[in-house]
């Protein structure tokens, strides 16, 4: 017996948004967010990720298309009636209220009784580890503490959905990493659905169940972080998530999911081709720097090329080599700092290679 497909909590159906009538900030967006999911909208600035979040929150209305939350069409529902919690980048705490009053705000506008309000605020404060801070003013707290207050305020009224708009952008790196895990753990503990906007790919990978990658107003790919990294569907995604070596090439022939492509320098390479391209079309062959085999290991691989080491940079957990290869000098190799790892010197001639499944032929 087939179990019914559960209705997603959020569904964008053919959503388009244009602010000026000529350029689309978001176009042809179809995206679903599952219940209890942590979905990140990732992309550079101007990619449409924030516009997407703003439309879901209700601050902007789509030019075309509908948005559904919990099966209900909310496209025309005003912000305050959507019951969505929201966390802003600059916290947006009310400076005229104490921390406790800030957190109580969503309860106050809903007419919750005083006693219930107090106990819920107390619980929210301890959830973000700020017990005893209720009487302070937001201005007296550090950036990280202010952000925790903003999170507590967004979840105190137990919304079905919490939106976070680059909430960690203003924090320094160490605090940001710590907050990433705190948010992740809160999400797991509360079983709430979160939609998170960021331009930081590490942040996206750390916290998300799935990541939706945006560029120039279009959704490029939605998948689990590991699959996005290992199996990018486009050159943009490959370049935006992690580092990639991208070699321009021309497709010679293809066979199912793989192809043979000729590099500009003449060599032929076998690669995985996720999206089928006709022979003769231009693609980029994308290989992750940590998948490159060197020396003896390379000699056994099906794709093997000559290269010269131009630069060696020791980064602690890894060593980064810049190689002259394929007529350019920006081929990157990363070597993990493991026991018995060979060391390399600049100027050395060396064989490089990779497994066919680690190389993907992607259209521009």
């Amino acid at each position, binding site marked *: 017996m087939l179990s019914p497909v559960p209705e997603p909590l959020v569904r964008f159906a053919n959503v388009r948004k244009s602010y000026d009538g000529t350029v689309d900030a978001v176009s042809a967006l179809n995206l679903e967010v599952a219940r209890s999911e942590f979905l990140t909208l990732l992309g550079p600035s101007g990619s449409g990720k924030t516009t997407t979040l703003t439309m879901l929150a209700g601050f902007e209305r789509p030019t075309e298309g509908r948005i559904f939350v919990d099966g209900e069409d909310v496209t025309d529902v005003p912000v305050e009636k959507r019951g969505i919690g929201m966390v802003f980048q600059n916290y947006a705490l*009310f400076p005229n209220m104490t921390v406790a009053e800030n957190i109580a705000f969503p309860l106050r506008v809903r007419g919750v009784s005083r006693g219930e309000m107090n106990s819920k605020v107390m619980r929210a404060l301890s959830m973000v580890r700020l017990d005893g801070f209720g009487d302070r003013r937001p201005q007296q707290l550090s950036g990280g503490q202010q952000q925790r207050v903003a999170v507590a305020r967004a979840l105190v009224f137990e919304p079905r959905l919490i939106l976070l708009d680059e909430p960690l952008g203003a924090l320094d790196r160490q605090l940001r990493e710590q907050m990433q895990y705190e948010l992740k753990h809160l999400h797991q503990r509360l079983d709430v659905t979160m939609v998170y906007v960021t331009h930081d790919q590490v942040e996206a990978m750390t916290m998300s169940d799935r990541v939706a990658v945006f560029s120039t107003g279009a959704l490029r790919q939605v998948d689990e972080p590991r699959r996005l990294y290992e199996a990018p569907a486009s050159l943009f995604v490959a370049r935006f998530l992690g580092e990639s070596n991208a070699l321009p090439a021309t497709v010679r022939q293809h066979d199912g999911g793989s192809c043979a492509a000729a590099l500009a320098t003449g060599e032929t390479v076998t690669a995985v081709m996720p999206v089928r391209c006709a022979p003769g079309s231009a693609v980029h062959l994308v290989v992750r720097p940590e998948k490159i085999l060197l020396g003896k290991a390379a000699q056994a691989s099906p794709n093997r090329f000559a290269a010269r080491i131009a630069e060696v940079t020791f980064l602690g957990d890894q060593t980064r080599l810049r190689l002259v290869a394929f007529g350019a000098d920006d081929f990157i190799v990363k070597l993990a700092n493991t026991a018995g790892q060979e060391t390399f010197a600049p100027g050395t001639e060396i064989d490089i290679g990779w497994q066919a499944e680690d190389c993907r032929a992607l259209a521009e």
Partner: protein
Amino acid sequence: MNRHHATGIVMAFAWMVLGFLALPAFAVVPISFTDTRYLAMPDEHWSLQHWRAFLSNREWHDSIWQSLWIACVSTLGAVVAGTLCAIGCWRASSRWSERVRTAMILPMAVPTIVYALGIYRLYVDLDLVGSAIGIVFAHTVTGLPYVVLTVSASLANIDPRLEQAARGLGASVGQTLRWVIVPNVVPGILSGAIFAFIHSWDELIVVIFIGGRAFFTLPRRMWDGINDNLDPVIAVVATGMILFTLLVLSAELALRARRPRS
């Protein structure tokens, strides 16, 4: 010339300018204690006779009372209308709201006598000359720019996302206004109120035109007094007005000092 010297000269000049600005207002203080029967400095000794005369004069008391309630009511009107206008312009923040804000400042920019003439013409047709509502309305309108300016300045410091946050957390427009926007611009509202009050309190020209026979506010009674006879009681009233204005202004200063900085 050494640096120290130059600083000294600049300082002396600054104090001179300051003195020139402020001191003439205080000339009335010794005059109010004059022993003569006309407006002049005390001749042989200081006397309290004109203060006594002022305290026992009903006309002056009526004028004070009139000035006071007109200032209070028109301040209230200017505060409510000016605050709402400033918040509306801030929220809309379009080309049009910028124009509206400029128009609101017009009563301050147009020469008062021109403005008074225009109001007078209008009030003759509306039969509002010499009416309480007419004066209160005129003072409300001319006090409006102060409120619009100070509240707009306060709003400029508010993060526009506060409103978004409030709405996003479930607050209606009214709740957002009441609990988030207005509390954060209270200092601006109070400053505007104080300036609007002072404006009405010492406004003369408009009252001369539209006061008719019924309204002799404090400034108008002083003006008439100076024209008719040079009664030193005017200096007494002026001293009182200066004291009162200083009091209100220092309240404004104290308020500004207390304003929390984020």
